[in-house]
């Protein structure tokens, strides 16, 4: 049915099966859209947020998707700026994942604000002192960059590419992609950092306030660093999942291994930095404010010290050690575990830097307040997930996301005569297909 749209040289499931899959995920998506509309029309009373939890699940989801979406900028940086050519085989997918993550983040932000129709005030009436302003600007700009990076891939769709204008547009965009990658990396550095700053500047909240060590807020660097470290892990994770679902090898091991190795070292250095930061905070900052480390990790049923150990030791050092050793990252199971732990780690980090801050009482006469998201919050948080799956499915089906795929999955039989009709440009297309052309 849709064979004309499917890239050459690859095999895709039958259309009805595809539609069924999209329909199922689409139902989840619609559930999310319904919750979103509820939030827009009835207001944020649909959530379980409250005056203690002004920031909650959504802001966490925002921070988390941007952190794991950091794979796009970091892979781009490595590929285009540092010239790691092996990564050309995964860069398309990294960009796609980044695009999904950032568009999701923007969507969640649009739901999260109490007055969506005034959302543009953040640009028009911008307060240059606010970290959130920086986030909004960089986020939107980088989303623009990701869109520009994603467009050439879309233009490579077999039918679109037939239109000469698009063909050339795509080609020329490829030519200048390094510029965008550099811009993206620069923007990413700032907004990942300013997202860290969002928490780090809260000097009224001792848990968030991470000062000392050269510069303030230190979370600025930690966030950028952790996104650069764990983002590629998410790219690997999603690639692995995609490979499992499609039962195909889609990306060459060289790319994965390289990315994993770089990630490993990044995670290791990050974990050391994070430990140092935590140490400084726990021994200098916190006591100066009359509190001890354990004040933040006890007297409540949820946020125990285990969360700190889980975040830094289990989801920091362990994946780092797996990924920096050749043996570790070559072992498929170990790689799986490592990237999973790394992604979990960064998500936990974002979780505590949003929700634990809110949970902890600063006034001595207030109590810990715990929070459970409402179904509307959960649905709207799953919404981007469903949207991401759909976009990946469509992109995978119709776009040459994985340049190695035909090579890694040669097709034995050559039936199907109807393709004859579109002869003249076939070869050209094939030649142009890889994004690195």
């Amino acid at each position, binding site marked *: 049915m849709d064979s004309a749209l499917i890239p050459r040289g690859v095999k895709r499931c039958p259309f009805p099966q595809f539609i069924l899959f999209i329909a199922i995920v689409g139902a989840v998506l619609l559930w999310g859209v319904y919750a979103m509309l509820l939030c827009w029309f009835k207001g944020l009373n649909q959530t379980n947020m409250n005056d203690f939890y002004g920031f909650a699940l959504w802001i966490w989801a925002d921070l988390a998707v941007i952190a794991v979406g950091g794979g796009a900028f970091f892979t781009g940086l490595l590929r285009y700026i540092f010239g790691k050519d092996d990564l050309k085989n995964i860069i398309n997918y990294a960009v796609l994942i980044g695009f999904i993550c950032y568009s999701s983040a923007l969507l969640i932000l649009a739901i999260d604000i109490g007055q969506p*129709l*005034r959302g543009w005030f953040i640009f028009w009436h911008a307060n240059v002192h606010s970290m959130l302003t920086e986030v909004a600007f960089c986020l939107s700009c980088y989303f623009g960059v990701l869109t520009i990076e994603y467009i050439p891939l879309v233009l490579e769709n077999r039918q679109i590419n037939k239109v000469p204008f698009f063909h050339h547009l795509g080609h020329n965009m490829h030519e200048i992609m390094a510029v965008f990658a550099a811009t993206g990396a620069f923007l990413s550095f700032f907004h990942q950092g300013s997202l860290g700053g969002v928490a780090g500047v809260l000097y009224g909240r001792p848990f968030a306030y991470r000062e000392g060590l050269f510069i303030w807020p230190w979370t600025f660097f930690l966030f950028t660093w952790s996104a650069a470290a764990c983002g590629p892990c998410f790219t690997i994770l999603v690639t692995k999942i995609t490979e499992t679902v499609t039962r195909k090898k889609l990306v060459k091991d060289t790319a994965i291994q390289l990315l994993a190795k770089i990630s490993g070292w990044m995670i290791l250095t990050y974990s050391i930095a994070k430990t140092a930061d935590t140490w400084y905070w726990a021994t200098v900052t916190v006591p100066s404010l009359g509190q001890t480390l354990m004040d933040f990790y006890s007297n409540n049923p949820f946020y125990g010290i285990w969360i700190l150990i889980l975040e830094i030791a289990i989801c920091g050092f362990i994946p780092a050690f797996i990924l920096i050793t050749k043996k570790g990252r070559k072992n498929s199971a170990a790689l799986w575990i490592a990237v999973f732990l790394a992604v979990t780690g960064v998500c936990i980090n974002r979780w505590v830097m949003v929700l634990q801050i809110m949970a902890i009482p600063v006034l001595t006469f207030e109590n810990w307040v715990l929070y459970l998201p409402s179904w509307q919050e959960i649905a709207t948080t799953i919404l981007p997930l469903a949207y991401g799956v759909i976009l990946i499915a469509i992109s995978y089906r119709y776009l040459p996301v994985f340049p190695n795929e035909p090579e890694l999955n040669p097709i034995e039989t050559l039936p199907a005569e109807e393709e004859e009709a579109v002869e003249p440009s076939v070869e050209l297309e094939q030649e142009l297909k890889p994004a690195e052309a």
Partner: protein
Amino acid sequence: MKIDRRSFLSFLLGGAAGTALSPLPWKLTDDSSIWTQMWPWTPVPEDGEASYVNSSCTLCPGGCGITVRKIDDRAVKIEGMKRHPVNNGGLCSLGLSGLQLLYGPTRVKTPLKRVGKRGRGRWEKISWKDAVSEVAKTLGDLREKGQSHTVGFISGSDRGTVPRLFERFLTVYGSPNLIRTPSIIDSYELALHLMQGAQALPGFDFENANFILSFGSGIVDGWGSPVRMFRANSAWRDTGGKVIQIEPRLSNTAAKSDKWIPINPGTEAALALGIAHIIIKESLYDAEFINNYSEGFEDWKAFVLGEYGPDSVATITGIDSTTIIALARSFARASKPLAICGRGQGTTPGSLNECTAVHALNALVGNINKKGGVFAVAEPDYINWPEVEMDATAAAGMQKNRLDGAGSKKYPFSRYLLNRLPQAINSGKKYPLKALFVAGANPLYTMSDSKAVKKAFDKVPFIVSFSSYMDETAQNADLILPNHNYLERYEDIPTPAGMPQPVIGLSRPVVEPQFNTKHVGDVIILLAKAMGGTLSDAFAWDSYDACLKETMGYKWQVIIEKGFWSYPDFVAGPREESFDTVSGKFEFAPKETGSLKPFKPVKIEGDKTNYPLLLMPYDSIRLANGAMGDPPFVMKSVDDTVLKGTDVFIEINPKTAGEHGLREGQLAMLSTPVGQAKVKVHLFDGIMPGLVALPRGLGHTAYDEYLAGKGINVNELIGPVEDPVSGLDAAWGVRAKLAKA
């Protein structure tokens, strides 16, 4: 021309460019955000000219002066009146939220007549004319049958022109059954009557006292005139005055006091006598007063010295003897000591023995009718209406005994015994109550043992409520004749509770009546006129306003300008003239009361084996528990350790809770011999082990959704206990048990 895809695309591009260059998208974006700033469903208060009207608050007997800010004809804020003798600018949360009552959804907007079964909440609107003639007809029929005495009237007050109109009406009509709602004032009036021979109100010169010995009185919990008490309490902070608070629970007053002495509940009288014991033994008393102005001191002395040694008192009260001795000494040695009683807000009259014992302490230090002491404040005598002429029916009716037994042989000194009314009706021993009028009171909520009260009300065939609001009593009435709200009507407010010098406040219309309501005074006058005869003659005024103006006479001009009338040259009479007893002196041991009998604690309901705990109601200034319920703002100020959702919390000592296996926030079933209720547990270190405290003021079934259905009305769990001397309700608690729910 063929329009192909490219042309169409080109058209779209041009359109996009043009749109971007036109104001349309930008103006729409701007306007849509402005729309959110002006959502039509968010009200915009209309601006206008600001003005201020002085009036008096009548939401409690405190009598604060208020200044209402108005914008054009809307009242927008109530503030305390500056330089008012009671509150000087301050105001309590209830008074501050009065506009929520004025404009609130609980107002009864027009006269209503019950349709269907009583209490079902189905009403039909009727005209004032029909309403008045219906009441007149019912009353006329009863009177014709010679049953005028079967008409009762429950009023929130018996002072001032409006209650006096009720009294006048009943007198000419022929019923002795005017009943005032009870409070500690009843006990104090009795004490003053018996010990000083005075028919007067108790007045306390807190402003000049510097050592307050409070037997559980909620000085900052709403006792007396609340705002005045707050001010006095703050003044003591500045001047070094001391407050000693004696009660089993760490109330706000206890927390604010200089010393909190927990005491076994219900043993306050013993402590007072124990203190007297030390003072007498150590000759710390005011000999001048005792010798010249008292009678029966020797008898009383013998009694106190004999029975109330510090050790035996320590056993009774649980306070160790050294504390008692120290307390007695510091009280007697203070330059201006003052002892007061009445638990919490003084909601219940309590034991008369206790009141006289505390009053005797004041006498012991010569603190009667003296600066910084207790005064017997005579009613301001501004109401001088022509004598009524009673016809034979009226005279016959007035000869009948009161249904509540006040003034009877058993309780000769008491004037009103509302707590005995349900029992009198339910037992049917005397005579039935055929019609009941309720004004300024909400007995179905405020009277203890709700079930019995409800049963009694069900037996009264005709109930008329004058309430401005749909309260519990109005809800169960047959006819509601809604009074103007207090901000829509004139009314005189004679001397607020506990004031040592007489003041008359004036409540006046701040805004036009918002609904089809009528001043209750006008309704009484109309009713009298409709009934004709002597009734009509006794109510010759055209209207209530005319009546009030005439009554106030020359004071009217001043009161209308200043908002209140005070007696600046008021001086309490010399001590020689203070006492109107047989002896002309202060009676330490009035024979009639048996106050020389050894102390016996009030026997509260329930046995210890089945009900191991003690339940005490407590009063909070954030919970109105009288005729008025909390308006939404005040409900908002109620802590989440008092009420959460619809669940009320009991306060319980962690130790006791541990014994019951109860944790913070857990649901539990609280049972008493009177009733049971589901409550939540709040662990509170400040309450004596073995005690459970429940706040008054919750558990309303009427009023609006902001108040109704939340928590438990403590009156459902506690019943009245008759004081053997006064017949007043002396219950301070009830035995209880607690089980996990």
